[in-house]
């Protein structure tokens, strides 16, 4: 053994011991504090999801105070970098160390699913504020969702296509869980309505050059193309769609609201004007609740616009507050979840409620069209499908 190897080892013991003392010095919680562990991807590719939710949660507390049901609500924000095993570890630590009463956040489906066993085992409510795969709420009886399910937004899109008289549609989705969900939900509904999906294209998530796929669309000459891509890629698709001249050849482009994401819509340029989508939230929703929400959000975060991620986080906090009011500050997980079931309120997105059977969200899905108002691009709502339940679970219940 050389000297340097010896000291290396002792250094390592020293460092770990010192670090431990630091970490364990977490202050004990007072009786009247309810802790909410907010786990979000704050770095990495899904960082913008995390930011939107984080800002909306802070905004909710700024607008409504920190008291609910006689308790002070304290939010602990953690970054899981969008990696599932980290999410799970952080959730576990929040439960056993920080004694949180509620876990919240969850930017992506695998992150929510990885944490499900923890919420079941520890009987802690898990509020899903973003992830949108339909099956998530089935993973644990403690999961409640305030975002949306992808089929919930997709099935209306298929109905819209039928209504507009489009017979032949190509689907173009990102090659991962939610994309495949969307492809399936759309295909099933559209074929049921008597339409035909002439090609189902999947774009790799890693190097998304849409050009070759859009060329396929052009060669296929459908009436319309249905697109689902994760938030952030929408602008690329629309631009390349136009660049390829597909708009001029009469092919319609439509999709879920992930495509004209409010977060980036204004920077996409005039090419997106006229783009049709179906979604549960538009920052242009004409209600006093939404006007107040958007104004406060923009005041707190200049130059930014809240998107459906933000509203998911905002309503997640609303749900927690309302449940605490209902239990009068009781933080037992089972009682909290019971209190959440059937709750309904008017959110910035419009009326919404929690389905007592599935713990999933019931909400209106709006048909929107991108228009320019006062020099800015907005998703203007033109019609609404009211009180839409998650179609996947609704179909299961019917059986």
């Amino acid at each position: 053994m050389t000297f340097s190897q010896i000291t290396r080892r002792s250094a390592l013991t020293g460092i770990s011991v010192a670090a431990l003392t630091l970490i364990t010095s977490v202050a004990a919680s007072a009786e009247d504090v309810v802790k909410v562990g907010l786990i979000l991807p704050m770095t990495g590719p899904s960082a913008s999801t995390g930011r939107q939710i984080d800002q909306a949660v802070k905004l909710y507390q700024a607008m409504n105070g920190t008291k609910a049901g006689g308790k002070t609500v304290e939010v602990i924000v953690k970054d899981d970098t969008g990696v599932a095993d980290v999410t799970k570890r952080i959730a576990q630590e929040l439960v056993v160390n920080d004694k949180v009463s509620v876990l919240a956040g969850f930017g992506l489906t695998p992150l929510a699913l990885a944490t499900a066993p923890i919420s079941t085992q520890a009987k802690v409510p898990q509020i899903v504020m973003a992830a949108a795969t339909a099956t998530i709420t089935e993973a644990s009886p403690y999961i409640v969702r305030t975002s949306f399910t992808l089929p919930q937004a997709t099935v209306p899109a298929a109905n819209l296509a039928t209504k507009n008289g489009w017979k032949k549609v190509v689907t173009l989705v990102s090659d991962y869980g939610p994309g495949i969900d969307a492809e399936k939900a759309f295909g099933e509904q559209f074929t049921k309505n008597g339409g035909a999906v002439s090609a189902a294209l999947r774009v790799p998530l890693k190097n998304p050059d849409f050009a070759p796929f859009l060329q396929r669309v052009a060669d296929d000459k459908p009436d319309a193309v249905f697109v689902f891509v994760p938030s952030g890629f929408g602008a690329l698709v629309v631009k390349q769609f136009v660049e390829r001249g597909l708009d001029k050849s009469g092919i319609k482009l439509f999709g879920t609201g992930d495509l004209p994401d409010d977060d980036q819509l204004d920077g996409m340029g005039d090419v997106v004007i006229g783009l049709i989508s179906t979604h549960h939230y538009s920052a242009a929703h004409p209600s006093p609740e939404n006007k107040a929400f958007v104004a406060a959000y923009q005041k707190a975060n200049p130059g930014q616009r809240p998107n459906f991620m933000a509203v998911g986080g905002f309503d997640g906090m609303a749900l927690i507050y309302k449940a605490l009011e209902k239990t009068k500050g009781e933080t037992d997980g089972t009682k909290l979840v019971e209190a959440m079931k059937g709750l309904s309120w008017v959110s910035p997105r419009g009326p919404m409620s929690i389905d007592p059977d599935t713990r999933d969200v019931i909400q209106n899905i709006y048909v929107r069209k991108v228009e320019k108002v006062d020099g800015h691009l907005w998703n203007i709502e033109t019609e609404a499908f009211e009180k839409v339940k998650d179609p996947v679970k609704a179909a299961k219940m019917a059986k």
Partner: protein
Amino acid sequence: MTDTTDQPLAPVARASRFLAAEARWSWLEIAFWIAAFGLAFVFRSNHLLFAEIAILALFAVSLDLILGYAGIVSLGHAAFFGLGAYTVGIMARSGWGDPLTGLVAAGVTAGILGFLTSFLVLRGSDLTRLMITLGVASLLHETANKLDWLTGGADGLQGMMVGPVLGHFSFDLYGTTAYVYALSVLFVVVLGLRVLVHSPFGHALRAIRDNPLRARAIGIPVSRRLIAAYTLAAVIAGFAGALLAQTSAFASLDVLEFHRSADVMLVLVIGGSGRLYGGILGAIVFRLAQDGIANITPQYWQFWIGLGLVALVLLGRDRLEIVGRRLVGRVLPWLVGEEKAR
């Protein structure tokens, strides 16, 4: 190295004495393991993080075997890690939840992949090897994404039922079982590798790393040694992946992601490669730093880690080591005293 046919006796005796001294256990090494296992009884609230560190350390140690000892750089080590994770994951989902047999199975599948792909890394420059390993891992990642009926695709593998370790210790919420289990596997692997790297096989690997041509000239079967080392490293990486899947009862595509390969490389280089304990040190420093900084600034912790890396390289690890040595020299007596008391 054991070949003693024509050599005079004295140098051989001297050499073997030198080698034996190199392989001897130092009391600090022993103290480290005692302390590590001792942590299972204290700081209960951090056991999850410790378990994660132990797993990362095991992964880094496996990379050390090929990078530090055999001189093969790899940016695709996550391929074996991920394969191990999915192996136990799929077994556990199909009802075979016993951790230890799962661990062995993961080692076997990862080892087979390692053996098969080892032929690709025998030739070429560092850059070529980096890119080939990266390519293999990327292909595996895409395959796992495509086989969503088997792997659950991007949603991750659902419904893993992991049984108790040795039929007794089930995984608890605090992560104590997870920590002791992961640490034990790390300990056994390090024990094994200790013997291995001080054996003729280990010396042959180092000779190849330092100069493949000369190694071949003195009669070392270079390709065979490299294949063996690469396969063994794959087995150990498979163990690490299996541990992660078992302790978190979950496996998703990110066990195969590029960032795993890159992280483990960082960890190893921070700790120092070719020293067996470098990976462990790196894992401890990297994860604690990451966790600590991310608690303070969840959004911008990457900046400070980056700054740390740049400073580490610019100042030079050697210089830091001298400073550290002086510091440790003062704190050491106090530390050792505490350990004995425990």
